[in-house]
């Protein structure tokens, strides 16, 4: 994994979160984001973002963090 690749994944997930946030319902949004990742992200991309979240996930937005939690489930 390169830094750039990870940076792009972080940017992508935060962008998905930002675009689905409506009226601040974080739980619902996190669910939408997690579903989106399940449906559209490759296995390796999901593994990388989960790994990043498990190591702190500093740059993930709060909703992105919630979404990754759900992705693991």
């Amino acid at each position, binding site marked *: *994994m*390169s830094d*750039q*690749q990870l940076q*792009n994944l972080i940017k*992508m997930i935060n*962008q*998905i979160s*930002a*675009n689905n*946030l*409506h009226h601040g319902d974080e739980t619902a949004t996190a669910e939408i984001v997690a579903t*989106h990742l*399940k*449906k*559209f*992200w*490759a*296995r*390796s*991309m999901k593994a990388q973002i989960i790994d990043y979240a498990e190591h702190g996930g500093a740059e993930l937005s709060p909703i992105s963090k919630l979404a990754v939690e759900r992705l693991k489930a």
Partner: protein
Amino acid sequence: MLHYFDPGKSSFDPNRDLGTPASPSETLVSVSIDGTAISVPEGTSVMRAAALAGITIPKLCASDNLEAFGSCRLCAVQIEGRRGYPASCTTPVAEGMQVTTQNGKLAKLRRNIMELYISDHPLDCLTCPANGNCELQDMAGAVGLREVRYGFSGENHLDAETDDSNPYFSFDPSKCIVCSRCVRACAEVQGTFALTIDGRGFDSKVSPGQNQSFMDSECVSCGACVQACPTSTLMEKSVIEAGQPEHSVITTCAYCGVGCSFKAEMKGDQLVRMVPYKGGDANHGHSCIKGRFAFGYTTHQDRIKEPMIRDSIDQPWRVVSWDEAIGFAARRLKETQAKYGRESIGGITSSRCTNEETFLVQKLIRAAFGNNNTDTCARVCHSPTGYGLKTTLGESAGTQTFDSVMKADTVLVIGANPTDAHPVFGSQIRRRLRQGATLIVADPRRIDLLKTPHADRTMHLALTPGTNVALVNSLAHVVVTEGLEDKAFIEARCEPAAYNAWRAFIAEQRNSPEAMEAVTGVPAEQVRKAARAYATAGNGAIYYGLGVTEHSQGSTMVMGIANLAMATGNIGREGVGVNPLRGQNNVQGSCDMGSFPHELPGYQHVADDTVRGHFEQVWGVKLDNEPGLRIPNMFDAAIAGSFKALYVQGEDIAQSDPNIQHVEAALRSLDCLIVQDIFLNETAKYAHVLLPGSTFLEKNGTFTNAERRINRVRKVVPPLAGKEDWEVTVALSNALGYPMNYTHPSEIMDEIALLTPTFTGVSYEKLERLGSIQWPCNDQFPDGTPTMHTLDFPIGRGHFAITEYVATNERTNRRFPLLLTTGRVLTQYNVGAQTRRTDNSLWHEEDILEIHPSDAEVRGVQEGDWLGISSRAGHTVLRAKISDRMLPGVVFTTFHHPSSGANVVTTDNSDWATNCPEYKVTAVQVEKVSQPSEWQRNFQTFDKRQQAYLEQSQDESASALK
């Protein structure tokens, strides 16, 4: 008695000219022509009624793609009870009418008319390029002209000078009979109004522009005039050179998503000319400069004629046999997977290749590579359409036929430039606008459609790039708050909970045009006016292009458009709908055929066990249930070192994809790049295996256009390097140990029909019978589906999606104060690999930067200056064109020439849902410079080296043959 209820449909031989257009009336009128009784729709001309009865009336100025004109008088007839000799083209039938088309008086009259024509016409028939296909000659024969009593010494036009300025056709006015067919074709068919008849009486002559040459006039070289000309006055230079063609094959154009049908007119295996086919339901006999004239690339010397391989991109190519090249490629792919794992390789399908070829490439990846790392160039154009329309309407496709626009009352064009990018459909919109429909254009540029002659009702919402969602939300806000919704439609057809949530959201004050004005830059009153015009017109139709999709909120915008259409009930009948204008000939098809990493053919998700099980059973192999990598993800993984081999069919990612330096780095990271293309394109310069592709003239298959219309592509010449593209994929698959045993593309289509619910009823046999089919075509719709969602949506009820406006990260600042947006011009096509190798380059020989006069003035920029364009991603240099069709603060360029490096400047920002690149918004600075950019200088060096490698290999191949 003969009955014709529906003239103009495919029950007539489209090769026949019935003289005047069909009448749409449903009322029938009975007449008798030369004793034959026939009933035809009210409003039909006597000429057309006669033709329908099998009776041919001589004519010169009439043609059934033009309104009757009545100037040549050759079609005069006698009608019982009426005086004189009325022209049958301009005389409509009346109940009980008795017509005589041939008798002594009429014969004499016609001979006299022909005699006058011929008295001012050269008698060089034997050496004339129209010989064998000249309507004037035919009519002279038909009327029995035997002498010209006036002689030829009087005043005449025989010395008129030929205009050879257009590279594709010549204009020889000495042969003109002033029938006005060219002038009317330019006006009625093309809608450009470049031609006129200058002067009166004997002095009348056809004049491009104001007595200019064709090239200097506003002529767009669509060729409609050439096709309309009954003599050799306007004549293709290819026919002048080669002579008349002797046979023709009906096929489908390989340029834009309109998918025009053409007759490829041949002389042996030489293509002499392309003539748009009247029986084609997408184009009805019209075409643009690209489809009609720009086919020279198919025989260009740059074509790759033999397979080639090399171990490293810093080596010359080695010309090898097909077997060796395929063996080499298969071995490299297997070695890569053995070393780096199953997911370390992938492929890209082509939106220029046929459905069958695209289907096979994704099958190869899923079944033989054993992963879902397949993607297609739709990633960078219409992937948001797939996502957005599937979410809202339940199907990833446009809802209408092109013809539907003829019933639209308001046409809303968003982020599309049809007269350049989809010219034949652009002409059709113009036809409707001349009939009085209202046009609303939402675009940062003042596109040419806004300058349609005789279109009186136009509005231009000149929004700031990147603010589409803000605009569509404010349009919907007006609809909802001013009570313009179609409540009955919403109640009957849409999901109530999602609708209520959306309604509450959209009605919020922050979505009002007044609140959004600061964001979009569009005055609120204009937005209100436009929303009312769209919602209350009766039929409102939306057409959109890449100006909608290629944004960070591309998918959101597509959903916003679908919301707007549903809220106003503009779905499910003719004249309305949501219509993505597809860029390439087979973008629709490549998406339908399962090119995306998460979807099997027919938009069926790979995680669906039932669907996957069906495919596994037919393909005899276990399939991965997880989505694969998309193109940008492949690039990232390549740079990271986990993605090592790529098979690319007919797609030039090294020119067309954004942030080129990033793409180049990714391609350099690959251990094995297999490129299948007709030329050494930019991507091929990074390849280890180069497999010769075949052009659309060299293979059988189907393309699917923007109206979901499946059209046949027919082979007219053998493939230059011996294999059609699908045969290459078959060979590669067999070499990889996954057997494919197709002998003809029709067998591939049978497999597609078996696995794709929307294609169940499609077969080559049915395509032969019906001409074309619009999917879905299955038990429910056996002949296809021209208009979608008439009764319900594939997801049951329409889904309103909440479309919150989220500004892009790409913003202007002091360092990058301008916004760059990219697009196309009429004469060039995408990366230009085809059109650059034709005379189309005379119109656009380099990419230029269009800049508003005020931005130019501030920077001291003059027309033609070299301008350095810098963004956060890169730097390139282009020549300046000062243009007031731009908004101040917005600059525009095209990406047709690789050395321009337009995509060096574009960033890797992308649509949140699909990763479709944000080509349309890049913050840039522009300043005067004196030399090409560093990237351009490196490009030149690299290009020179790779061209030399190619030449070396060809020299060696030639000497080996000796």
